[in-house]
Every structure is written in structure tokens, then in C-alpha cells.
């Protein structure tokens, strides 16, 4: 995802460095520090590790709860509201900017999702109940065992 940007940045860094070494120019643009890790690399690190966390966590979700999973992921993906709030809250000289208007629209859209997603997930999860133990004993179940409980599927 950020790979293309990274390669471009690295290329630019090399160009800048070689230009500096050749002494062709003394006005170096501060594009990339030679001794600091580029933020894009740090972002990429976080991204890849988060993908692995997501992979292992989601495989442990029981298939019975895949619908609530979609509702919850839908709600949390609306965390882009953070970007929307920053945009909506950034005035330039007190006037309302195009950027701000777009920020407000995005805040509203994302808020629909966040509230909607969490509420519907809670509604669904509230319905999942276990068999009442008292009743289970009186059903005359020949073996008396509880039926196969659908717990997590392994990758």
C-alpha cells in the first residue's frame, strides 16, 4: 500500500544524497533525513503487524458470530471520523473552507456508521443465549450431553 510511496521516497532520498555529494547544489530540500527512519516505513511496519493481528484474531471468531463481526468491523472502520474531525475543526483565518465542509459531511456519515454498527451489534449479541440448564435435563436427551457447541474454527 505505502510501498510505492516508500520506493519513490527512497529514490528521491538517493537523488538528494548524490546531488549533495556531488556538490551540485547547496540548497537541499529536507525531504528525508539520512539518519532518521522515514514515517512511511514506520506506518508500513504498523500496518503489516496489524494485518497479522487481524488475521489471527478473526480466525478465532466463532462462525455463529460472523454477522455481529461484520457490524462491529463496520463500526470501527468508521474510525476515519478522526480524519474527518481534524478536517472539520481546521479553520483558516476564521472563515469556513471547502475542506471544513467536507470534514463535516464525513463526520456525519461516519457517525451514522459508528452508532448504527455498534447498536446493531449489541442488539444481535443480546439475542444469543445458552440453553437453560433446568430445561436441558428434562428433555430426555438419551446421552444427556450438550450438543456440539460451535466454538472457534482453526485456520
Amino acid at each position: 500500500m505505502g510501498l510505492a510511496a516508500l520506493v519513490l521516497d527512497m529514490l528521491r532520498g538517493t537523488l538528494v544524497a548524490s546531488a549533495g555529494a556531488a556538490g551540485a547544489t547547496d540548497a537541499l530540500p529536507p525531504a528525508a533525513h539520512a539518519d532518521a527512519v522515514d514515517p512511511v516505513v514506520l506506518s508500513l511496519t504498523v500496518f503489516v503487524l496489524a494485518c497479522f493481528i487481524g488475521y489471527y484474531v478473526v480466525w478465532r471468531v466463532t462462525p455463529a458470530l460472523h454477522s455481529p463481526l461484520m457490524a462491529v468491523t463496520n463500526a470501527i472502520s468508521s474510525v476515519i471520523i478522526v480524519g474527518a474531525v481534524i478536517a472539520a475543526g481546521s479553520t483558516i483565518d476564521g472563515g469556513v473552507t471547502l475542506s471544513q465542509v467536507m470534514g463535516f459531511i464525513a463526520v456525519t456519515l461516519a457517525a451514522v456508521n459508528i452508532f448504527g454498527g455498534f447498536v446493531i451489534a449489541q442488539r444481535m449479541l443480546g439475542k444469543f443465549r445458552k440453553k437453560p440448564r433446568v430445561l436441558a435435563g428434562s428433555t430426555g436427551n438419551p446421552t444427556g450431553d450438550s450438543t456440539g457447541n460451535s466454538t472457534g474454527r482453526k485456520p
Partner: protein
Amino acid sequence: MSALAMSPNLAAMLYLVASVCFILALRGLSSPESARRGNILGIFGMVLAIGTTMANLQAVTLPMILAALALGGAIGTVIAIRIQMTALPQLVAAFHSLVGAAAVFVAAAAYYNPQAMGIATPDGPNGIRLSSLIEMTIGTAIGAITFTGSVVAFAKLQGLVSGAPLIFRGQHVLNALIGAGIIAVAVWLAMSGLPGAFWTLVALSLAIGLLLIVPIGGADMPVVVSMLNSYSGWAASGIGFTLHNNLLIITGALVGSSGAILSYILCTAINRSIINVIFGGFGADAASAGAAKEQRPVKTGNAEDAAFIMKNASSVIIVPGYGMAVAQAQHALRELADALKGHGIKVRYAIHPVAGRMPGHMNVLLAEANVPYDEVVELEEINRDFAMTDVVYVIGANDITNPAARSDSKSPIYGMPVLDVEKAKTVLFVKRSLASGYAGIDNDLFYRDNTMMLLGDAKKVTEELLKAL
């Protein structure tokens, strides 16, 4: 600069806490008990994320932002409280479209005010850092595709447009051209940073999102919804890269992998590759295939016959499908199960991964009717039990019980894992008519000796059966 300005480090730490909350929210979904706690943690994480962001803003804008938040929140809450569980798939599709649209708006806001997002540089294209511009391009494109794709999926699931795949000549060529166009415009945008390039990119991405989903049939919408779930995550990640915000990157990656795994599980359950689902146009020739069927004898029965068979059984497995949801038969079904249990009969429910219109849809519908979740069993765990079962009650399901998936290599569903219901002593098959299923495939099960067809509305048949018991 703000009322409660906090250091960037503190803000980043709070974002980290929010990220951990989201991870735990997903982790909680491994069992229904922990899931409710997890959901609360997720809500806490979201409050923390929004609160942290707002604390760093100029105080004058806060009332307006809170108003937008309240407006959106009220709309979302009312929809979520009012929605019927049957309509869940289209609701999720509609919500995905909002994430896509929000991603595009955030990207556009960042494009028009790079200073606010901390991505400005005097020597970049149009005053924006090159790397941020490229990341913005990716986030915008995925967001726009998610938006139109989800709108189409919503329209198909809601029945606003026909569920049949829309296929026209030169479709793949057109898609390829637009795809190439998106790459070209992305390069143009990275070089020039011009608004024209930005909006051309948005327009092309919107178009490709529409064109990619239009040819996919209604039966494949669960896969599409899962895939768009994944896209909405990647879009959030893309915006996170643009804004150098780890919370967005982490959350987007979690959601992205979640949707990808769900798509994978569904594709395995129908034995097709994701490529085949996207480009296959499955079910396009369903109508023609259904017409040329020879008439074979079927055994039909009434509620009394079925009740007699059930009363003499010692174990019953119920196989629900989307037809049950359409007929709203889940409550009647649970009462039937209670009556059977009263006769000392062991009752369980068998769930196929693609039963219903979204992953886990059947489980939610049964849970809504107060079916205890430990009586609801997944395909892999229950399939070998059919041979030891007296009666299978198939209600509103069809293709997922079709033995042709195992025996007929010419069948379009050949190789798909199905519930081996025909191995039971008796199969009671509730169906409105003898027409073929959603995928348009004839079911050999109808003509078996041990199958009794109960023709009629799923809810009515179940209620009659209950009375007869």
C-alpha cells in the same frame, strides 16, 4: 491553539489504547458471552479516539462538530433499532457505502487543506508531500470503489434492482480500460497534484466500483458484502497512511483482514475462487436451465403425515435457509422444536456457511427466536450425524442440501460442501413449489424415496405441523 491541547505523544498513546480496545472487541467475538463485553470495549475505544481528536482542536469548531456527530449518531441509532434482522445484509451493505463515501470526503478535505493534516510541504506537487499524495490516491480510489460497489450490493439485496447478473459485451475490456485509466490518473495526480486529476480519479473509481459489482448475481452477494467489508478497512488504512495516524492504519488493517477472511470462508463454502465470483456472472443462465426439466415423481405429504413421522423419531435435525427468514418462520420453528423436545426428541439445527444472505445470518435469526445457541451446529461438526438421525426438517433451504454437489461433476455447484441430509432416515422438505433454488439448479433430493415434500409457505407448514403434534 486549543482548549485542552495535549502533546502529540499523549495523543498517540491514547490512540494506541483505542487500537487495543478495537483488537479486544474483535477478540471477544470468539464466544457470545465475551462478545458483549468486547462490544462495550469497542465503543469505549471509539469514544476515546474521537475525544482525543477533539481535544486537540480549536474550541470554536467543537459545537458544530458535536452537532454533526449527534445528527449522524441519531440517524444511525434509529436505523439500527428499527431494522428487521432479515434485512441485515442490505443494512450492512448500506453502512459500507457510508465508510467509502466518508473516506473520499476525508481525502478531499486533506487535499484542499494539507496544512491541517500535517502533510503540506512547499516544494511538493500542489503544496502536498509526494508520499502523502500517493497514499491519498490509494485511499481515495478504494473509498470510491467501496461506495458505489456497496450501493449496488444494497440495491440488489433490497430488491431495488434485479438480482440477476448484468452482463454486456466488452465488459471486461471496459473494466480493464478504466483500471488502466485509474493508474494513469494516479500518476498524473502524483506528478501535478492538480484538482482535475484528483476528481478524475474519484470519478473513474466510482465507475469501476459500479461496473465490478453489477455483473455479480444476487446469490453471490454475501461474498460481495464481505469483500466490501474488507475494502472499507483498506480505505481506512489508506487514509491512515495519508494522515500518519497509526490508529487508522491498525483499525483499517483489522477490518481489512476480517473481510478478507470472511470472503475466503464463503468462497470455500461454495467451492469457487474469489476471481470466479467477481468475474463469473454465476446464475446468468439459470432461467434457461430450469425450463427443460423432465417431470419425475415426487412424494408429497401433509402436516399430519409429517407429524406422525416426527413423533416416532428420537432425533431431529432442522436445516434452515433464507426461505425461513423470508417467511418469518423462525418463531414457529422454535415452538415446533420445543414441542418435539417435550416428546423427548433430541433437536438440533444445522447451519451451512452460506445459508442466509450474509455470514452468520441464520445464527442471528435463530437467536432472535430464542433458540439456544448451543443447539445450533455448524456444517463440519454435524455432517456425519445425519446418518444417525431419524428426521431432517429442511425449511427454506435448497442448494445447500443438493447431493449433486457430491455426485454430479457437471453440476454448477459440484464440489461445494453440502449438508448430507439424504443420509437421514426421512427428509421432510418444506418448499413453496417444486421450482429450483436461488442458484437455479434442480435438486435431486426431491425425488429420493426417503424424501417427503411438504409444499406450502414455510411458516404455515410449520404451524400446521405444530398443531398436528
